[in-house]
């Protein structure tokens, strides 16, 4: 029998099954462990009797909870198993390297800047527990694109709706941008819906990660320019855009870089131009805040907490923005309901007008 397999071979089917298992445990974590933890927290808070006002109060109530320990372990390690180990995304794409790179459309290339130095904060931590980060390996963009399918596993295929709902919201506000800048565009998941929503607009999308930009350019059928650039220091002239946006970018940056990035947005916006970011900032209660801060630690996103602690209205006011709005965002129908039971990100829309 001609069997080319070796003991170290993982077939596409086995890789998919391993990933399915990880996703299944994550779904259980979202739907079952999280509500159980929330209930245990509520019981402990009632028994304790003191008001719960801060993250430290929630931590005190949960620090010896066995359920919380399993909750934390599963969050940390199922994400590790998603990316690393025998059925992990990184080893899989490393083995498929040549085929994966060939699958990208070589006729569409992003505009890369080989001289661009990656900021220290960016290379010092492998965000999302993605070994090597989204920037250091040529296939990292493909890894990230595949990983994003299960970032919010309860959404399933509807995860794409998140971006569409966000661009719909921009449309509903009556904004008709002509020149759009998407900061931290990644593999283009946020950019394409903007280009579709505003077919007459020119769209520029920038990111630090060359591997992500190559995927974005390859997947894009249209007019968008994908450029390798630091959002905190772009080469665009003053007042060049009338809409600057980002999706899930700001919480990955240390506060001084957030400040520079928002300040850069102000510089490249025309007076009257708008800025709109989809990120994590608005919390229903201290429990959700605690869960989010500890998620940042467990998911290797060290700036989630500092970002959520920033005085954004104060910063935007200082930078000369007006009509500053910070509002919770429903990534799916019904997720803002008080009795929505499952774990979710604290999605928030942060928008303002350049004075």
């Amino acid at each position: 029998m001609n069997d080319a397999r070796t003991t170290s071979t993982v077939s596409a089917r086995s890789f998919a099954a391993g990933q399915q298992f990880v996703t299944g445990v994550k779904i259980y974590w979202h739907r079952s462990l999280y509500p159980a933890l929330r209930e245990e927290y509520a019981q402990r808070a009632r028994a304790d009797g003191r008001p719960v006002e801060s993250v430290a109060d929630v931590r005190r109530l949960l620090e010896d909870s066995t359920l919380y320990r399993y909750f934390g372990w599963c969050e940390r390690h199922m994400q590790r198993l998603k990316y690393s180990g025998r059925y992990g995304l990184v080893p899989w794409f490393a083995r498929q390297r040549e085929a994966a790179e060939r699958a990208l459309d070589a006729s569409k290339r992003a505009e890369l800047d080989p001289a661009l130095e990656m900021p220290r904060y960016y290379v010092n931590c492998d965000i999302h527990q993605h070994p090597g980060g989204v920037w250091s390996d040529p296939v990292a963009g493909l890894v990230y694109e595949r990983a994003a399918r299960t970032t919010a596993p309860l959404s399933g295929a509807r995860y794409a709706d998140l971006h569409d709902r966000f661009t719909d919201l921009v449309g509903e506000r009556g904004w008709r941008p002509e020149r759009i800048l998407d900061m931290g565009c990644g593999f283009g998941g946020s950019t394409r819906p903007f280009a579709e929503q505003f077919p007459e607009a020119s769209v520029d999308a920038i990111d630090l990660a060359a591997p992500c930009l190559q995927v974005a350019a390859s997947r894009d059928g249209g007019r968008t320019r994908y450029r390798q650039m630091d959002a905190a220091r772009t080469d665009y002239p003053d007042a060049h855009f009338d809409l600057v946006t980002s999706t899930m970018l700001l919480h990955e940056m240390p506060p001084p870089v957030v400040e520079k990035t928002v300040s850069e947005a102000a510089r490249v916006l025309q007076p009257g131009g708008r800025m709109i970011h989809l990120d994590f900032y608005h919390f229903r209660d201290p429990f959700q805040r605690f869960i989010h801060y500890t998620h940042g630690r467990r998911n290797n996103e060290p700036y989630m907490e500092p970002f959520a602690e920033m005085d954004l209205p104060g910063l935007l006011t200082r930078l000369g923005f007006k009509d500053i709005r910070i509002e919770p965002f429903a990534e799916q129908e019904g997720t803002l309901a008080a009795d929505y039971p499952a774990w979710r990100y604290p999605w928030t829309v942060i928008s303002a007008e350049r004075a």
Partner: protein
Amino acid sequence: MHSPAPNAARDFKPQPEQTFFPDVALDRALGVVMALATEVYVLRDRQFALERQLARRGVLDLPQLEAEPTSEELAASSADRDAFVAHLMSSVLGVQASKGPTE
């Protein structure tokens, strides 16, 4: 083209993993359990796929495979079951298998 493995290109120094339980042994043992559970799921997936293919080709009688075993089959497999369980559970007794120091 083969790039260096992720993290090999940088000064990657492994750090101790986060822990969640009072005894780190539990953190690590749970990792072993989860790795085994993944393998079980991968095997199940492969076995079901194999069964479906064989049934489609008429090699396998799927209803018979899924039916409760007959008493003859159970009798034939009971010794194997007992040996399996004994092997699995014998560590619980905490008894030496060979003569030597007890601690």
